[in-house]
């Protein structure tokens, strides 16, 4: 496999950055502990049943997605809202731009949504001089800094208070303040004005509830509530896979989501929104739009074997528990979604050959599958993707494995090959080598030896020992 297959330099850079390393490891470590406390046998005795139920409900919803999308639409319209179907990010942006123009809105407030990240919504709107202000504190900071989110749940995981202080001084003109509480209050003050002045509020949706025509948005800060309640127009953007059939399915999903993500039994705010304000209500938007986004989801849906990739409820638990993510961090994954879930959906969205190294960037430890609240079998999907990629890989690698399989089905030659290797191997005291100049010509060995000693084949293999034993020959 060629050097260019793996973005080695990139990854080496991430690993060498000590500060980043400790930040990621510590933050994910905290989230791991919090989740563990929240799903323990005492805290959530029916955790495994909940996972099983969630998996089952998601499977049903996606296996019957057309019916539920239609039901969702019918109910949204019945409550006075409108549904906007968008195949691509460009269509979403066009819709918003047109609506903003019609309503004379030049300020938009937005709460966190990975879906909008996926379609580069902010960039598209900015291109047309429409400002969409991020209101989630971490996202707001990133927007000021012009950076991408680092983690599904903790976007500004990598920023320190010093960087935030510098940023606020430079971009907001406030006096430099290192106290985190004050920094937060500054953001609150600045953003409060935006909420109250904005013409349009855009949120994502954690769930789309088919039998209610509702979107469910969970958060801890209150910015999604403000975004969906203060401006006269609320637009909720969601991938079509976010559907669940019934409002009564929510307890299962909400219990799993908060606990898996941050160890919270419930997030601070859970909003169940089903349309514009109704007669008799004091507040709420006059107009309510749900944007249903495809953007490749129908492609994933079509592969029944990998369809469970779409069950994801974006909790981030797989990222937190992934030993690879904990080492290389979110910015080193291509595409919008990082960590184990990113490793299985990005190849499906972008085509497996776009980043052929991605499904291989895993030791298949299985920690992700163990913690996934909807029981997506991520290791199985990684293996399946590797198989898809191997079909178009280098003939040398295929040849090598083919040769190995041939040897493995011809035991006497296999045994002979083993003895030859043992005889040719350099002698090493206590069986390990620091250096092996001949072997280091081959990438496989060079890479191993760069940072680890390598064991030499045993003088006498187990099979030889067994044969000698049977003959009564000395076995000591």
């Amino acid at each position, binding site marked *: *496999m060629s050097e260019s*297959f*793996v973005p*080695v330099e990139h*990854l*080496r850079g991430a*690993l060498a950055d000590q500060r980043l390393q400790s930040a990621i490891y510590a933050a994910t470590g905290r989230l791991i502990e919090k989740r563990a406390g929240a799903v323990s046998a005492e805290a959530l005795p029916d955790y495994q049943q909940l996972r099983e139920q969630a998996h089952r409900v998601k499977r049903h919803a996606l296996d019957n997605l057309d019916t539920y999308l239609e039901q969702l639409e019918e109910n949204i319209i019945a409550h006075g809202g409108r549904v906007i179907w968008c195949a691509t990010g460009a269509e979403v942006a066009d819709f918003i731009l047109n609506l903003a123009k019609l309503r004379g809105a030049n300020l938009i407030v937005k709460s966190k949504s990975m879906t909008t990240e996926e379609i580069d919504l902010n960039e598209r709107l900015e291109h047309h001089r429409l400002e969409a202000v991020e209101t989630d504190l971490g996202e707001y900071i990133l927007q000021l800094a012009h950076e991408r989110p680092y983690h599904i749940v903790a976007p500004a995981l990598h920023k320190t208070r010093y960087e935030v202080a510098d940023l606020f001084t430079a971009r907001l003109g406030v006096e430099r303040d290192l106290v985190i509480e004050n920094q937060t209050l500054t953001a609150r003050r600045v953003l409060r004005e935006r909420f109250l002045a904005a013409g349009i509020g855009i949120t994502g949706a954690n769930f789309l509830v088919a039998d209610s025509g509702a979107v469910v948005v969970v958060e801890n800060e209150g910015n999604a509530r403000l975004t969906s309640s203060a401006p006269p127009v609320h637009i909720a953007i969601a991938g079509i896979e976010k559907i669940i059939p019934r409002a009564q399915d929510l307890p299962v999903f909400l219990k799993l989501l908060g606990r898996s993500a941050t160890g919270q039994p419930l997030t601070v705010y859970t909003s169940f929104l089903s349309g514009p304000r109704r007669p008799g209500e004091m507040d709420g938007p006059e107009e309510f739009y749900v944007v249903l986004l495809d953007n490749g989801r129908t492609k994933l849906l079509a592969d029944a074997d990998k369809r469970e990739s779409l069950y994801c409820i974006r909790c981030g638990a797989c990222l937190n528990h992934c*030993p*690879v993510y904990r*080492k290389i961090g979110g910015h080193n994954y291509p595409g919008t979604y990082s960590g184990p879930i990113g490793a299985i959906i990005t190849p499906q969205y972008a085509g497996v050959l776009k980043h052929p*190294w991605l499904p*291989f*960037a*895993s*030791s*298949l*430890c*299985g*920690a992700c*599958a*163990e913690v996934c609240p909807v029981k997506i079998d991520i290791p*199985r999907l990684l*293996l399946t993707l*590797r*198989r898809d*990629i*191997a*079909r178009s890989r280098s003939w040398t*690698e*295929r040849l090598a*494995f*083919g040769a*190995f*399989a041939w040897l*493995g*089905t011809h*035991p006497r030659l*296999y*045994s002979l090959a*083993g003895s030859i290797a043992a005889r040719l191997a350099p002698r090493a005291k206590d069986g*390990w080598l*620091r250096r092996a100049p001949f072997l280091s010509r081959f*990438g*496989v060995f060079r*890479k*191993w030896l*760069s*940072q*680890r*000693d*390598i*064991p030499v*084949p*045993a003088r*006498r*293999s*187990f*099979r030889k*020992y*067994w044969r000698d034993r049977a003959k009564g020959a000395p076995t000591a």
Partner: protein
Amino acid sequence: MTRGRVAVFVTCVVDQVFPAVGIAMTEVLQRLGYAAEFRERQTCCGQPAFNTGYWDEARRLARHFLEVFHDAEYIVIPSGSCTSMVAHHFAQLLPNNPAAQQLASRTWEFSKFLIEVAKVEDVGARFEGPVTYHDSCHALRELHVHDGPRRLLARVRGLELREMDAAAECCGFGGTFSVKFADVSCAMARTKIDSILRTKADTVVSADSSCLMQLQGAMRRAGLGIRTMHLAEVLASQ
């Protein structure tokens, strides 16, 4: 008086690189009264090919394995990852093959065999010193092997088991991952080694030789005198 025959699948790594593990395992089995049988035609379970996406090649090795062990009542393996390959993934590779589907019921990771089939925790072993145990990923998560090895180690005379805080974290081997993503793999090993150092144990024990190879390779390079031993080797010590 024998308790029955057991066919050992030593794994290609143990056969060619760490034969002492296979020797230790068969000694323990014999000590417990089993007749251990090594079928010479065994080679490799095909996991490296399978994990790298070469499923046709893996399938050939799987069929060979099935042929070699077709009539074995118990297949015992000193490796969590190879056991998981045989017991779970063969069925995936050969969905229409009934032998592959029922292989799981007669394939045993070594410690699981001791606890659940031999029903023994004290194998009469002696091993002095502080030891820490590394849970290999396949054993832990696919085979649910966690308490078994600890119970076995608890009965080894003279052994002091110290839990490391990162016992369940991956060592970074992952087969070809260790080479394709060598930098990340070694960073993972370093985290694991730091955790081992905190226990001040002088031996790391695991049920998988590949994990031990990864950890030992990294520890030797770092000049650390910590020794690695397979669970079978500890249990064979007297």
